[in-house]
Every structure is written in structure tokens, then in C-alpha cells.
């Protein structure tokens, strides 16, 4: 698949936002009394900024953004529609959480629980958008959802550590350790899916695609001279060396550098991890082999 850049930004930005919110909630739950004033309020505003940036970037994926509201209507069947509802719902709860802290309204833990539930629901919706596509075997697996959750929480906790370095220095050590643990967990779950995808055997072949049972079939024409939507949307068009470079970038950026930096320089660790997760999402698209590509194997 060709990586869709607006989607790369959407999933990494809101993932970090959701992870940050879950971390903020646990900060309040465990050490709420000793937190500096406005730490949680500032954090919630940061979550809202990340979610809003993600939402804005997702609009660039659409051919008709002015009709985006329609994307909420088919929530009974479409995970994309469910995400379209879950993202604003999550943002509304975070807004309420920030407001409750700002106005000393109270009930912040209760609103926080709802926010955490909505953050997880949003993670599941985002992951299921990909995991629900049965024909893309690389995506159609529970690991897709697990990775969205774990990598989102890891980057969110790294961001929380970076934020705490300025706003609540007492928390940095604890948050950095949590970020370290989640990043190790993310390395494990993503490594499993990388290994799985690299060793997948495709279900469909050129033989089943055109229904001709002969081992030797060569494509001679694709039905177009200058390519088509099929050759643009489903192939990333990069060299194997470039793809290997992205793989190295994702392993270094998402895992190795944050693990090395988070305990000492959490802000730098978050920057590295965010860029690494952009590479991770790029690779996520590039490693998915769409069965329609069987119809576009060559021309003469």
C-alpha cells in the first residue's frame, strides 16, 4: 500500500494524545494530591492540541472534506465511522476534564475514567479500521490493535515525561521509567508483527486472481498506458533499499533512541520517538501487500 501521509500524522498524533491522557489520569489517581497546580490542566490542553492537529491532518486525506460529517452515519458497520465519532467524543471528554480542573469543578477522576475508556475505544476503532480489512493479511490481525495501543501509550508516556520535566520535575523519574517499560513492550509487540508480516504466505495468487490453473503466467498488459489508480494507490513505488532504510529508522527512532534517552533527556526522546513512529506507520502501509497488486505485476 502507498503510505497516506495525512493518516500517518493522524494516527501518530492522536495516539500520543490518547497515551498522554491515560498517563495524566494515572498521575492524578496515584499522586493527585502532590501534583503542581495546573499540571493536569496543561497536560489536558496538550492532549486537545495533539488530537485537533490529528483531526485536521485527517481532513487532507479526504477528496471532499466538506462532507466529512457524513462519515459518522454508518457507525453500525464501518470502523471508520466509529472512529469519526470516537475522536470528537474523546476530545469532548478531555475538554470537560480540562474545564473541571480549571474551574475546580471536582469529579475530575470520574471524568478521567470516562476519558480513559474513550481513549481505549478510540485506539480500538483506529486499529480496527486496518484490522477489519480481511484481504490485507498483514493488517487483519489483533496485533494491529495491540500495536496501536502500546505504541500510542509509549509515545504518550514519553511525552508525559518530557512535559513533567518542565511542569512537575518530581514526576520525571517515575514517568520516564513507565515510558521505558512501555517502549520495551512496544518493541516486543511490533517485532512480533514485523516477523509475522515478513513470513506471511499470501492466500491469493495470480492463478486464483484470473482463474487459470497454470504455474507459468506472465502479465503482458495492464489495460492502461500511463498507469491507473490501481498502480498509484496500492504500490509505494520505493526501492527495497529505501524500505530497509525506513525499517532501520523505525527501529532506531521508535525504540532504540527513546530507550537510550528517556531517562535523561525525555524531550529529545519524545521527538525521536514521534519521528520513529512516523517511520513505523509508513512501514505499516508499505509492508501490506494488497491482493489487487496481482493484477498489476508487469507489462511489456
Amino acid at each position, binding site marked *: *500500500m502507498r503510505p497516506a501521509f495525512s493518516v500517518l500524522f493522524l494516527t501518530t498524533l492522536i495516539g500520543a494524545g490518547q497515551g498522554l491522557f491515560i498517563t495524566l489520569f494515572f498521575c492524578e489517581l496515584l499522586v493527585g494530591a502532590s501534583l503542581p497546580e495546573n499540571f493536569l490542566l496543561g497536560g489536558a490542553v496538550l492532549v486537545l492540541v495533539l488530537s485537533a492537529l490529528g483531526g485536521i491532518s485527517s481532513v487532507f*486525506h*479526504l*477528496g*471532499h*472534506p466538506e*462532507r*466529512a460529517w*457524513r*462519515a*459518522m*452515519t*454508518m457507525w453500525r*458497520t*464501518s*470502523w*471508520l*465511522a466509529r472512529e*469519526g465519532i470516537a475522536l470528537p467524543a474523546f476530545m469532548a471528554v478531555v475538554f470537560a476534564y480540562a474545564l473541571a480542573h480549571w474551574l475546580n469543578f471536582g469529579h475530575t477522576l470520574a471524568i478521567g475514567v470516562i476519558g480513559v475508556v474513550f481513549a481505549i475505544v478510540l485506539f480500538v476503532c483506529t486499529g480496527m*479500521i486496518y484490522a*477489519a*480489512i*480481511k*484481504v*490485507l493479511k498483514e493488517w487483519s490481525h489483533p496485533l494491529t490493535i495491540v500495536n496501536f495501543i502500546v505504541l500510542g501509550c509509549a509515545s504518550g508516556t514519553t511525552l508525559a515525561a518530557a512535559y513533567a520535566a518542565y511542569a512537575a520535575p518530581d514526576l520525571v523519574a517515575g514517568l520516564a521509567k513507565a515510558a521505558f517499560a512501555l517502549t520495551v513492550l512496544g518493541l516486543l509487540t511490533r517485532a512480533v508483527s514485523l516477523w509475522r508480516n515478513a513470513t506471511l504466505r499470501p*492466500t*491469493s495468487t*495470480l492463478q*486464483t*486472481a*484470473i*482463474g*487459470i490453473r*497454470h504455474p*507459468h*503466467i*506472465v*502479465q*503482458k*498488459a*495492464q*489495460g*492502461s*498506458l*500511463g*498507469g*491507473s*489508480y*490501481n498502480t498509484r*494507490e*496500492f504500490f509505494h513505488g520505493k526501492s527495497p533499499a529505501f524500505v530497509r532504510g525506513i525499517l532501520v529508522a523505525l527501529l532506531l527512532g521508535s525504540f532504540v533512541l527513546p530507550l537510550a534517552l528517556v531517562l535523561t533527556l525525555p524531550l529529545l526522546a519524545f521527538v525521536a520517538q514521534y519521528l520513529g513512529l512516523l517511520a513505523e506507520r509508513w512501514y505499516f502501509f508499505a509492508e501490506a501487500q*494488497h*491482493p*489487487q*497488486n496481482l*493484477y*498489476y505485476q508487469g507489462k511489456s
Partner: protein
Amino acid sequence: MTQLALVIDLNVCVGCHACVTNCKQWNTSGAAGALTDCNPYEQDPNGTFFNRVQTFEVGAYPATETVHFPKSCLHCEDPACVPVCPTGASYKRKSDGIVLVDYDKCIGCKYCSWACPYGVREFDEERKVMTKCTLCVDRIYDMSLPEERRKPSCVLACPPGARLFGDVHDPESEVSVAIRERGGYTLMPEANTKPANHYLPRRKTTVTVRNEELYRSDNPHKIDGAPFDETLPPATEELN
């Protein structure tokens, strides 16, 4: 329940692209607006098509066969593209099983094209909506046309008649009989989308010619008794 579909005979298709041309002509002239063409007369001509003919070479040289393979939406009975649509723009009609896109509702997110295993939906780069074969829904019910013309444009255009159109749920229809009696099959059955369109496989088409059929009773030699040079090898004319 009706399920309209195409049945494409790969034994008959000669790869002339008449179906592609007529499909484009009909669907670019319709009420839904033009099917985009980008750089039509430049390098890398590009555009939106509902139907394409691909060509494959089967076997190793010299024992090869050229297979022309027309490819368009298969109007699956369990379409993967429909439930994923977040707006309901993609839908399957209950009345005749045609899978359609409501261009006024489509937000152009391309999610349906990711879910379709066959790559038969094309995003229109100018209209910014997803497009696909409509089985010429705007002409197959047009009562102003004579009945034999109420067929998809590709079917009407096909010079050797490789494309059949009808209701695959009616066991007595032309398409059902063809599927039943000529080994009709679906593409990528493992995708479990139950395509309504079927393909008829290549088969051995040989004509047995008996020796006496090679001789023409109206051969000029036999009629006018012209001289016959025995030293020359026989020409076709003489054999006949």
C-alpha cells in the same frame, strides 16, 4: 431475488478493448458527469475507467497462449467494499444486486478501494469521489430504448459476443445456463466476497474437417476443364 451480473467468456475475448471504449463513452456522457482523463494526448495518459482489458501469457515459450482478461466490478453478493463505507455512499441495491456509489455522499476517503480485493474501484482524480462499474444502471432500465438495447454498453459493444448479461439467480437465464454448462467460475473465491460476475474458462475449440470437405464441387478446373500442369505442386485452388 435478482442479481444482475456479467459473464465473460475468456475463450471468446479477443482483447480488442471495444468494451473498454464503449464503457468509457457511455459513462463519460451520462448524468453523473465526465470520467476524468488526465494528459489524454501527452506522456503518461491517465484516466478513470470502469472496465479494463488486461493481457496475460500462459505457459512457457513456444507453448504459450495469450489470455485477454476484461476486469470490472464483480458486483459481489457479499461485497467487502460496502460495509466499510463510513457514509453509506457505497451500497448494494436489494432490487437487482448492483453495487453502486452515491457520488453526492462519497467523501473520497478511498477506504472501500482498500477493502476490495480485486482493485476494480477507481478514485476519480478530478471529481474526488470513488467511481466504479454501474452495470450501466442508467440504460438497462431505460424504457425509451428497444428491449434488446437495454444492456450494459460493454455487452453491446463486444464484437465476438464474449460478454453475457443477466440475472445469475434465475436458473433459466442465459448467464446461469452458461455458468452451469460451460464451467463458469469466480475470481479469488478465497476472498469470500461471492462475486456475481463469472468467467468462462478457455476450452479446446477444434473443428474436425473431413477430407471430402476440402474439395469444392464448383472448383473452376472441374467446371471449365482447363489444362492442369501435373509437374507443379498443388495450389490451394486445385485442392479445392
